[in-house]
């Protein structure tokens, strides 16, 4: 179970352009880190590097458990990391129920978690609709379902609230708080500040 996320000397570039270098950072359970900075500053790349989807030029991403001994990266990412990017990975042709079911099955879920997800994000009326018929906000809530349906320690969110309206932003903020209370960690790339006490890392100033 991931308790601490440690970045040491992390250097990431996209193509020829270096985004940031020698980034050191430690995030402990219960903390949320907000990534700010202009478009293209590397927020998404940092999230993808933590999730292991992007190979850093140098430096390491480390996960430690409660009493500090390091976890195997592959194992930790396969069982303890959620990555919610701009693209939600949903298949337009299938129904919301099938897609939520697949995403939670694939990431490992509890039956209790699944019902809780549907209730937390008001997905009940959407379940029998085909995904392509959902609005952007509804699709985002459906994609967020897996965060609650398959409890995992580290949430990596890329501008999660963008398509949501005020009511569902507040609901999501509550889910984030609930996750933090349960010793979860969150790293979120945001444009407008999160309604939670957060640490911030301005990627714009790093290069």
């Amino acid at each position, binding site marked *: 179970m991931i308790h601490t996320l440690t970045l040491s000397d992390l250097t990431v570039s996209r193509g020829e352009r270096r985004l940031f*270098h*020698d*980034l*050191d950072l430690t995030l402990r359970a219960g903390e949320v880190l907000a990534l700010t900075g202009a478009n293209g500053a590397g927020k998404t790349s940092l999230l993808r590097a933590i999730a292991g989807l992007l190979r850093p030029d*140098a430096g390491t991403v480390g996960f430690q458990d409660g009493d500090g001994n390091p976890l195997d990266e592959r194992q930790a990412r396969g069982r303890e990391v959620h990555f919610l990017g701009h693209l939600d990975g949903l298949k337009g042709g299938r129904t919301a129920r099938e897609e939520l079911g697949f995403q939670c099955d694939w990431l490992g879920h509890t039956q209790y978690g699944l019902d809780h997800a549907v209730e937390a994000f008001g997905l009940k009326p959407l379940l029998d609709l085909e995904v392509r018929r959902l609005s952007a906000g509804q699709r985002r809530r459906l994609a967020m379902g897996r965060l609650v349906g398959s409890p995992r320690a580290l949430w990596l969110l890329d501008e999660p609230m963008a398509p949501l309206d005020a009511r569902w932003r507040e609901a999501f903020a509550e889910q984030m708080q609930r996750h933090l209370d349960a010793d979860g960690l969150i790293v979120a790339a945001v444009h407008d500040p999160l309604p939670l*006490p957060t640490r*911030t*890392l301005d990627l714009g*100033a790093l290069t």
Partner: protein
Amino acid sequence: MLDLDMTPYAAFVWPAWGVSALVLAALTARAVVASRKWKRELARLEADPTPEAADTNRPQVARSAIGPKERPQAAQGAVGPKE
């Protein structure tokens, strides 16, 4: 001695050798021209150093890390939690 009389098969031997020579010459020319071009370009770029001396931000791509690992800029750790 050198026998260049290919009579019955001249139409096969000469094209074979001719095209082979042509292609090999083309390959050589292309390689040499490209080599000279980038050699000149590199010399020009390295001759007039960029506005600020080109040694701080040592690019990792073409040059392996020799000497101690440099940390050109103290990393900007996360700002303390905002109350």
